[in-house]
């Protein structure tokens, strides 16, 4: 018998009967019930289930669903009737993807221009920003920095330069830029088809304009720092500083560089062409699926080019169950399978000692360190961003929600950061590709850590003691008590980045080691990786021996080192 139909398979999968347990099993289980069972149930258990909804509410839900479905059918029918252009539906889908790449740019620039901007759709509801305990004092009051000819541009100035280089949109494009569909004017089907073709051509042109702006920016950056030129080099300064080329020879993977990604991480830019151009080109050729895959996906192993996508969000709510599963497996002498290891979960299992704010709702932290010395690590820097909510006190008991909706993101300075990668970003793509939410409710005492690996622009990496802006960490949230949206930012400069690995803070090095352990577990054992991990962990021990979390981590590393091959 070599094949089954659905019915046979279903029948085989469905057991005939339920096995009967041994007669004494229940007693054996009950005998092991702990004497002290009392516990405080989690407070975030309020999950409304459909089964508990009242009949009236179910009825409303059903009616709303019906309206949605019928409306969709009606719209589809109308579209088919009025727009009989072959392939139109597909081309619109493709174009919307391309437009997504393009339309994002003004928003990103807006956010980066104004480091404390509220959530975009609430721009009109500007709130007074409370005193920020850890934000640089000049940040809110200082005007945008105008770059001098001899300076690299700051975050604000760099993005302004990009904006100025963007071509002026023709009148027909204005509707696209502002999100107003051209169909509202009521053109004929033929005109609409022509518009679609025009859109496609403009998306290509605009993507190419982005590349041009990127090159111009790189050239300006190089001109500001001529020291990057290698003796004897015959290449132009602009070519030297192109972020695309800075990864051209990135193929070596060592014990440490494995932490920072592998050669496969280069696929974000195939053949050195930014994703926006790839996407537009592929769409022109009708390669829809490939085009979608080429989009700069947030948080995966692709290193994202900062000039293409300077903004990266990270999850505020992290389920750390993976860590406990990994610890259990390692404790039993088993190398965990890669699919159970979550970098983000393991990193966020530990409290790295970020102090809660005094008098404010949130404190933001940012620090960085170069990776340990080594040719393959040149120009690679690990950044740790942290957020800590105020701790509980007499007014706000532990576990109280202080922000109902919150999100955090980092905006990188493209003049300093050529590319970046969110460690553990792959964790978001689980369960049928569903993204782990980057929004979340925040309780008192809540903390979260995000680690980014960045590749410095070559001219920055070559300059010892650089102090330029690296990134801006943003947090905005809706206060649970008042319902008011608030925001906070933390500027990170070169001064927040240690000169070398040994000079980095102990918590930062620890967090990097945790990520390194997770990625080692994911990628399979190599003696060199485990040895390096154990060595670095031991070096940290005198600094963190008092920290229970670190003691637990060190024990885990030792057990991993003892796992059988």
């Amino acid at each position, binding site marked *: *018998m*070599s*094949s*089954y139909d*659905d019915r046979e*398979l*279903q029948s*085989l*999968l*469905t*057991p005939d009967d*339920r*096995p*009967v*347990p*041994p007669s004494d*099993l*229940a007693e*054996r*289980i*009950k005998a*092991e*019930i*702990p004497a*002290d*069972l*009392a*516990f*405080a*149930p*989690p407070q*975030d*258990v309020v*999950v409304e289930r459909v089964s508990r909804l009242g009949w009236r509410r179910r009825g409303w839900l059903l009616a709303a669903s019906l309206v949605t479905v019928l409306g969709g059918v009606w719209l589809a029918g109308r579209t088919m009737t009025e727009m009989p252009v072959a392939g139109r539906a597909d081309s619109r889908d493709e174009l919307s993807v391309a437009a997504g790449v393009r339309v994002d740019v003004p928003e990103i620039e807006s956010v980066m221009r104004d480091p404390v901007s509220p959530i975009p759709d609430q721009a009109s509801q500007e709130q007074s920003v409370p005193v920020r305990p850890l934000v640089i004092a000049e940040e809110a009051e200082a005007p945008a920095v105008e770059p001098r000819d001899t300076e690299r541009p700051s975050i604000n100035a760099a993005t302004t330069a990009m904006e100025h280089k963007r071509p002026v949109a023709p009148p027909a494009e204005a509707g696209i830029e502002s999100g107003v569909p051209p169909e509202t004017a009521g053109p004929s089907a033929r005109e609409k088809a022509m518009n679609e073709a025009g859109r496609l051509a403009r998306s290509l042109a605009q993507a190419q304009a982005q590349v041009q702006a990127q090159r111009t920016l790189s050239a300006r950056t190089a001109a500001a720092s001529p020291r990057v030129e290698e003796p004897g080099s015959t290449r132009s300064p602009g070519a030297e500083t192109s972020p695309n080329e800075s990864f051209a020879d990135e193929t070596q993977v060592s014990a440490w560089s494995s932490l920072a990604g592998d050669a496969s991480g280069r696929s974000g830019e195939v053949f050195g062409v930014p994703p926006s151009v790839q996407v537009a080109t592929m769409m022109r050729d009708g390669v829809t699926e490939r085009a979608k895959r080429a989009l700069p996906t947030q948080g995966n192993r692709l290193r994202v080019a900062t000039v293409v996508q300077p903004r990266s969000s990270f999850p505020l709510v992290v389920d750390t169950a993976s860590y406990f*599963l990994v610890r*259990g*497996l390692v404790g*039993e*002498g*088993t190398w965990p*399978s890669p*699919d*159970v290891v979550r970098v983000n979960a393991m990193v966020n299992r530990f409290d790295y000692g970020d102090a809660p704010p005094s008098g404010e709702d949130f404190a933001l932290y940012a620090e960085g360190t170069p990776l340990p010395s080594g040719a393959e690590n040149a120009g690679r820097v690990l950044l740790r961003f942290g957020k800590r909510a105020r701790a509980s006190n007499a007014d706000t008991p532990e576990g109280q929600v202080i922000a109902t909706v919150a999100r955090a993101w980092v905006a990188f300075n493209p003049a300093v950061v050529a590319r970046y990668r969110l460690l553990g970003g792959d964790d978001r793509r689980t*369960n*049928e590709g*569903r993204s782990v939410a980057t929004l979340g409710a925040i309780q008192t005492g809540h903390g979260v850590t995000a680690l980014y690996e960045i590749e410095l622009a070559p001219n920055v990496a070559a300059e010892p003691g650089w102090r330029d802006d690296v990134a801006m960490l943003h947090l905005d949230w809706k206060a649970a008590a008042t319902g008011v949206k608030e925001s906070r930012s933390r500027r990170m400069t070169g001064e927040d980045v240690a000169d070398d690995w040994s000079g980095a803070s102990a918590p930062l090095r620890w967090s990097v080691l945790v990520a390194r352990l997770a990625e080692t577990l994911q990628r399979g054992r190599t003696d060199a990786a485990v040895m390096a991990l154990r060595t670095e962990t031991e070096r940290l021990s005198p600094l963190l021996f008092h920290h229970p979390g670190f003691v637990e981590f060190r024990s885990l590393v030792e057990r991993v080192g003892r796992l*059988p091959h």
Partner: protein
Amino acid sequence: MMPDSAHEPDEQALLTRLAAGDRRAAELLVDRTYRVVFASLMRLTGGNEDLAADLTQDTYRKAWAAIDRFDRRSQLGTWLYRIAYNTFLNHVRRPARLLPIDEQRAAAVADPQPGQDDRMRRDEARARLRRAVVGLPEDLRFTVTARFWAELPVAEIARQENVTGAAIRKRLKKAKSMLRLTLAEDP
């Protein structure tokens, strides 16, 4: 894993009593759930009764230790099955026990009675099916075993996995396709 009787306290009430340290509530919850936990482990282990009973005990030991983290997103039985499933995986992944599950446990599957050819063929087919299920990717394997061997409703699995019911049905459909292919290749 529904209550045996509609007249008994519902699960939420028992869990509340449990949180208050009521041992009797814990015993009632055991009575309600252990048969299905044991049955699912019997199916996972290929019919090894002693092993299934040991793993059932392990499951409850772990459950008591982690009960304060049970968020009640799903029913207790669903949560218990996740623990049982992980306990089973931990067991078979131990270095000393890395023999293929089917070979390890094949001898423990009850032999068919003489003369019962149909039954024998069916058991043989089930053994092959079990091999194929164990070889599925993790998410599909959990979903299939939870649905058929732990007898959990789709909605419950969806809550446990934090996905939609449609996603679970998609997984089941994909798993069945893979199982058919595997069984077709398995001589």
